[in-house]
């Protein structure tokens, strides 16, 4: 690698984190400019080994890749909040690394950290203070991942690695850079090498008969009513064994070529199609496949991103953005107030408090930077705009997914199963408050309250009966409560309720059994465990 002759035709415009090794420009190096990239304001010859320290991409690619990568990570962080209730539940934890069990996140700290990460990723996507934001996000992400084996997604480990490496990538616009300006980054090269190593090991793990004959893949690609019949399409065409071999060959090919720039016009479409196939298979891996597709943006040839960045509508958007973010404290204040207002509408836990805290810290940092480091005022409005974008994303993910309701439902369910009824009641009250039209909250809260506040409990059960008229469970819960009262009148009412349950859900064997038991007077209270 070290013996490769320097290309010399594309001097880097800027090298925000130049290697410290002293270098002498080779005699063959010509300070000419590329026809595709603008000449450099400052030219620093790349030290050896050039494979690492001479790696360049256009500013357009780095900027667009930054927006896509950190935007996806922000959305992924918000979607992970639904898993927060499992952390610390029952006072038990096993960390990924021995000896760290006691340092694992709790359910509150997990949710708060993911909200904070989503915010930091939006700041990074906007190119704000990335030298600080990305390492802080890496530390937070690493704590969540290494803190507990409950996080069994290998791609979260990959994200930790990419964030650690990404902390050294110069994500912010170098002074005077245009879309065509080349930016040199050894860390971005390492970013791609990390992916190549991942593909290599993934391929090695598949070099077994159980993979090569298609059995493993056949168990993973299953046909379900809500999925396209991918399995049928594969079986009718190339078959699972051939597809399995193709996957292995593709991973080996990507491992071998991902770092070879000349192969990128082939690597990019192959990699994107490979991960689109994973998206279609709907493996339960969150946004991993989309994240990988986003990362392939760094492998797409520069000229495509340059053309996109120079497309007139994008330039107009860029100018508009610069006008907004170039404004001063008044516009910044309006944007921040808008962000806080949006955060108050978000149903995710701790959203308002976190937004207030982070915006406060950001404004404080911006003021300090302006006051003590003569930072241009433009940064202040940019922070306001990023805050608005971040809380806007919180709102979009909240309203466009089940994260908030899942969070309270899972919290209530795990607390109930582990015997913490006070915590379960709190969770279900929150669920009813944010989603009054969801029957599950009323049903579970009603069941929980029957012993200590039967009037409220029955009211919630009846609301659930109204909201899910084709399910028997709320009728049966009320019937069991009435039967427990022991009086003849209550037993008659219980039988009526149980019968209503069979009308609501004729296929419910539990409802029919309850009617039978109440009719014969042989009722034994079963342990019902609906999620």
């Amino acid at each position, binding site marked *: 690698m070290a013996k490769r002759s320097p290309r010399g035709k594309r001097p880097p415009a800027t090298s925000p984190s130049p290697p*410290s*090794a002293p270098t002498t420009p080779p005699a063959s190096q010509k300070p000419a400019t590329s026809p595709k990239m603008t000449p450099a304001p400052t030219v620093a010859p790349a030290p050896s*080994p050039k494979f690492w320290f001479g790696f360049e991409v256009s500013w357009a690619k780095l900027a667009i890749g930054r927006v896509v990568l950190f935007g996806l990570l922000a959305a992924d962080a918000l979607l992970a909040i639904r898993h927060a209730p499992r952390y610390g539940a029952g006072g038990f934890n096993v960390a990924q690394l021995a000896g760290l069990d006691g340092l694992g996140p709790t359910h509150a700290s997990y949710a708060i950290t993911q909200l904070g990460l989503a915010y930091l990723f939006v700041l990074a996507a906007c190119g704000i203070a990335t030298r600080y934001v990305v390492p802080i996000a890496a530390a937070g992400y690493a704590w969540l991942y290494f803190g507990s084996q409950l996080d069994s997604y*290998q791609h979260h480990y990959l994200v930790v690695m990419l964030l650690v490496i990404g902390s050294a990538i110069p994500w912010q616009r170098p002074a005077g850079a245009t879309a065509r300006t080349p930016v040199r980054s*050894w860390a971005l090269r*390492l970013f791609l090498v990390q992916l190549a190593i991942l593909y290599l*090991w993934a391929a090695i*793990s598949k070099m077994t008969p159980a993979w090569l004959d298609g059995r*493993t893949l056949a168990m993973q690609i299953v046909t379900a009513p809500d999925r396209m019949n991918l399995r049928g399409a594969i079986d009718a065409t190339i078959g699972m064994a051939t597809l399995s071999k193709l996957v292995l060959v593709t991973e080996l090919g990507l491992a071998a070529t991902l770092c070879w720039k000349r192969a990128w016009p082939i690597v990019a479409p192959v990699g994107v199609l490979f991960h689109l196939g994973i998206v279609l298979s709907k493996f339960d891996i969150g946004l991993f496949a989309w994240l990988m597709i986003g990362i392939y943006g760094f492998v797409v040839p520069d000229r495509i991103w340059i053309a996109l960045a120079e497309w007139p509508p994008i330039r107009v958007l860029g100018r508009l953005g610069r006008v907004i973010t170039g404004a001063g404290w008044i516009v910044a204040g309006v944007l921040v107030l808008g962000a806080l207002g949006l955060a108050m509408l978000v149903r995710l836990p701790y959203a308002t408090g976190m937004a207030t805290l982070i915006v406060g810290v950001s404004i404080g940092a911006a003021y300090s930077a302006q006051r003590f480091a003569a930072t241009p005022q433009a940064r202040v409005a940019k922070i306001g705009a990023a805050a608005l974008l971040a809380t806007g994303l919180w709102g979009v993910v909240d309203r466009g997914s089940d994260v908030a309701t899942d969070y309270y439902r899972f919290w209530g369910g795990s607390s109930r199963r582990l015997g913490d009824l006070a915590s379960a009641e709190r969770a279900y009250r929150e669920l009813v408050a944010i989603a009054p039209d969801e029957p599950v909250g009323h049903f579970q809260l009603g069941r929980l309250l029957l012993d200590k506040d039967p009037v409220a409990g029955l009211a919630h059960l009846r609301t659930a009966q109204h909201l899910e008229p084709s399910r028997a469970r709320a009728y049966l819960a009320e019937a069991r409560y009435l039967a427990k009262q022991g009086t003849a009148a209550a037993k008659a009412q219980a039988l009526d309720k149980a019968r209503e349950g069979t009308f609501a859900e004729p296929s419910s064997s539990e409802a029919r059994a309850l009617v039978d038991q109440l009719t014969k007077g042989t009722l034994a209270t079963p342990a019902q465990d609906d999620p």
Partner: protein
Amino acid sequence: MISSIVQLTKTWRGRFILAIVASQLAIPLHYYVRHRDPHDERFAWRMFSPMRMSKCQATWQRDDQPLNLGGEFHEAWLELVERGRFTVIEAMGAELCKRYPGARIRVSLDCTYLDAPAEHYGGYDLCQVPEL
């Protein structure tokens, strides 16, 4: 190649690169050359591997009576038990030994694999022998 590595050792950036690359080559290798738990594929980049398709059934007993773990641990931990993760099973055993002092906590783990014969692990008191 050697001269490149030598050059890399001269700067902090180079040493950082070497540390990342070396660790990413060595850590997954550990799974293949020296692992105690075949089900534990963490850090080995073995996504969708045949081992991931293995299924384990754990039978827990407290003083020779069946023990229902649903009220003891979050169901996510029970899912990891079904994947045969030794460290998790051992930690759960240790926790149960702590919660029920003096009790015998026995776990038997029966696993089936796509590409290997079924295996049996444990079957003894984890409070006496804490490792599977």
